[in-house]
């Protein structure tokens, strides 16, 4: 079963995403900020990362820049999932190495569509 790391400081968002992604047959690990996510990736790189932008300790964009420099950090497919919806922010995320980008609020249909776009399903 493929693994997806869900990174968001909101427990509610993590729970909603977990429920949808488990239905899509992903094994889920959760992290509450970028630093926790980095530590999780150093233990075992997931196939997919669903990533919030604004979080305490380490933001999503800082995590992503760091991840892409880690050994094997080019492998995970990263889908941003954030309330940031300016074109400039989206372009910044793609430049930093995001594969897809999802704007909150989202539902199962959108998450499914974005994971399909990213080649994860």
């Amino acid at each position: 079963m493929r693994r997806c790391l869900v990174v968001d400081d909101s427990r509610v968002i993590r729970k909603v995403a977990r429920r949808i992604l488990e239905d899509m047959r992903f094994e889920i690990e959760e992290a509450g900020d970028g630093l926790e996510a980095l530590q999780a990736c150093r233990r075992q790189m997931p196939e997919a990362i669903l990533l919030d932008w604004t979080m305490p300790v380490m933001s999503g964009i800082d995590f992503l820049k760091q991840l892409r420099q880690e050994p094997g950090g080019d492998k995970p497919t990263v889908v941003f999932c954030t309330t940031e919806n300016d074109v400039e922010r989206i372009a910044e995320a793609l430049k930093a190495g995001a594969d897809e980008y999802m704007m909150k609020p989202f539902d199962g249909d959108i998450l499914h569509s974005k994971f399909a776009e990213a080649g994860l399903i």
Partner: protein
Amino acid sequence: MLNEAEFVLIAREVKARTGAVISREMSGAAAVRLQPLARREGFSSVPELIAAARIRPDGALFNAIADNLAQSETRFFRDKQNFEKLRTDILPAAMQKRGHERVRVWSAACATGQEPYSIAMIVDDMRNDGLNPAIEIIATDLSERLLDKARSGLYTQFEVQRGLPIRKLIAHFEKAGDLWRIGDRLRASVKFERHNLLHHPGQLGQFDVIVLAHVLTSFDMATRASVLQRAAEVLAPDGVILIGAGETLPEDCEGLTLDSGAVRKADAARRAA
């Protein structure tokens, strides 16, 4: 929920106007979808709206009811494989055949426009690949209400996240308040017109590609066949009709063959084989 008499009346009037079949299971959903129309028209309930439609001689209320029940479910790049085929195979082949003439594409039953704009994005991709595609896109729907939205090129955040890759969103759209507006160049590349698929499409001219996806299933079998036959009559001899993923040719479709979602005239398919 509509009562039996209301359901029978609405189903008959909608079928007469659009060909769409409303099943009894859809009765509850139809009542919900008619509530905003009832309010706009000054009625306190959907049954009142239907009662007024029954006695209004010009049929305008039934027209509005049919419009509001028109199929509007769509998304960008629905049936991704159809768009891949268009880009890599169907459009380049049509361009080669046409030479200096424009290739003509018809997006039939385009609803709120996601399908023809997806085709326009494919054409833009081909341009970026160094091709010089001269392609005219005509998009039609029965509903002026849906066409107005399509022409506006304005979509909600939910709509632009269904099927549209993020790189295409930032390449072709701009923010317009809480909405996203498709760029002027792409918007201008699609011509929207009202057309009822129950009528012959002859006035639209001849097409090299017709996209008739996810609409035939809303008709009964006889109407499916006649809509497809009429579309075939405005299809160029080597043209292609694309239907939706999982859709099949209705019975009594003589002279047409289906292969991987692409419908061709049987004699053209034989020539190609």
